[in-house]
């Protein structure tokens, strides 16, 4: 059974801690720079170290059986995500909210309703749709459609998204935040009803992976990991 885990940083360490405290010791191979690892505590398990952003795709392709990544990434990157992966456990770290933020100086905008009205006026005066910078296109678009916000456009921003407003490449942003400090430092505020998703590191199972042999491995470690496999026909 292949388990995909983020390959570096705090997220990797917290993953190792989570599995370790439940009897599965994960460690990187002796050369710390090599992206390979080992799992002790149960047989037939293979550790695969991957970029957190790649894990949703690897799960969808069935190349790994289990994977740890943020549910924001899963829901953004996988169309009809629930048909492709099943969440098994919230791991209790990597918490962050996907939110919509606007400049603090927008004293007339506190809600999505205000954003919609501001977008209409902005388009009339400036001749183009109000730009919202984000890398979460699917989640943001679905959210704004449900809220009935019109006259906006999404512009892609893969990093330093909070800076796009000051750089005049966007009027508002939609991004992940945990403490909100970066937002405040960039003179932005979160809309009162602008929380799109609460995300955290989550253990997912791949529905399309070959579970013939891996199923027994998972059933073996499930009690120690505190996983309930009830209702997941592909795992029982």
């Amino acid at each position, binding site marked *: 059974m292949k388990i995909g885990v983020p390959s570096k940083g705090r997220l990797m360490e917290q993953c190792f801690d989570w599995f370790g405290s439940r009897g599965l010791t994960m460690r990187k191979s002796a050369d710390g720079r090599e992206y390979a690892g080992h799992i002790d505590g149960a047989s037939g398990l293979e550790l695969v170290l991957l970029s957190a952003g790649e894990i949703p795709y690897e799960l969808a392709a069935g190349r790994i059986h289990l994977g740890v990544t943020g549910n924001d990434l899963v829901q953004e990157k996988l*169309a*009809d995500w629930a*048909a492709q992966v099943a969440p098994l456990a919230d791991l209790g770290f990597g918490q962050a909210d996907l939110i919509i933020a606007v*400049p*603090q*100086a*927008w*004293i*007339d*905008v*506190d*809600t999505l*309703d*205000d954003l*919609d*009205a*501001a977008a*209409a*006026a*902005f388009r009339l*005066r*400036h001749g*183009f*749709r*109000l730009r919202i910078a984000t890398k979460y*296109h*699917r989640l943001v*678009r*679905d959210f*704004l*459609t449900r809220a*009935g916000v*019109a*006259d*906006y*456009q*999404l512009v892609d921003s893969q990093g330093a998204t909070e800076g796009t*407003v*000051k750089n*005049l490449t966007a*009027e508002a942003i939609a991004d992940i935040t945990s403490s909100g400090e970066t937002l405040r430092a*960039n*003179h*932005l505020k979160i809309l*009162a*009803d602008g929380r799109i998703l609460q995300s955290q590191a989550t253990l997912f199972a791949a529905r399309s992976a070959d579970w013939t042999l891996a199923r027994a491995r998972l059933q073996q470690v499930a009690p120690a990991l505190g996983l309930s496999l009830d209702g997941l026909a592909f795992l029982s």
Partner: protein
Amino acid sequence: MTPKSAIRAEAETLFAAFLAAGAVPVDADILLPADTLLDLYGEDIRARAYTTQDPLRGEMMLRPDFTVPVVQAHMTHGAEPARYAYLGEVFRKQDRPTTRPSEYLQVGYEVFDRSAPEQADAEVFALFARLLAPLNLQPGTGDIGILMAAVRGLSTTERRKAALLRHVWRPKRFHALLDRFAGRAPMPAARKALLEHLAKDTPQALIAAAGQFVGLRDADDIAFRASALIEDAAAPPIAAPEADALDQLLSISAPAPQAMARLAGLRNTLPWITDAVAQLGLRLAAMKAQGIAIETLPFATTHMQSTLEYYDGFVFSFHAADPSLAPVASGGRYDALTAVLGQGRSIPAVGGVIRPGLVARLKGNT
């Protein structure tokens, strides 16, 4: 699966019928510049159309429908009046598992004519009804123009009317706004707090106090909306009889003659819908003259209300009995769209499309 050759043959037959009705064949590119479509339809189109990147021309879309290229072609070098027919693939992204195809043929017929819109409406509908008659489909009709006329005449501020008109195609949001403007829904706490804050000082002072200024939306934009909010809070609610009449208008769904009678009854409270209702009367008479059984023709004010936002008058569709299937045919009037794409010029336009894939499939089942 219906063989592609059978679908193509069905499409050719329909196309020939449109040409026989007097249409000129028109071709359109498959790769369209994304900016025009985005400007027109908004971000929603990105969820429905395939986008791709051209190294020189930037973001492009695989043709999601023919309306935009056909209108553009007409506005650039079309004679008047004009009738066009087209046949080709359209592409629609599907984000959920579905039996609906993401690539399929469309055959369409569009009329650009300044005289007697009711005649053009009836001509298009009757042509479609005649071609689809062997399939025993369920027709549906509506008129977004009546709803827009009803909103335009309301005794309230221009700003509120503009907000309602902007969301005519989003029923949920439209109703939420109507409830608020009519005083039927309490003011949301967030808006109340916002208004209290705005009352404390001038917009300029409040903006300065809010922190460092960033972004392209400037102090004028903000101050303008701040004063609009204060003005709106002071405006009286839309009178209950008007709001109720608008609700009744939205709930009309009946055979055309009964719908017509109910609309006529609403003219006492909403006298400004008189012209739009008269136009419906003229259309029904024109349809009757074309042999349509208007006594049983379903009419709903909100028919096809939540489609892409460009229909602004007569709308129609033909459905098979199986509700999981897309409409076999649909269309309507889109006068305002020609103004948007015509850069200052405009022409009344009505038209529709048939999905030959569904026609072939339904014929195969019988």
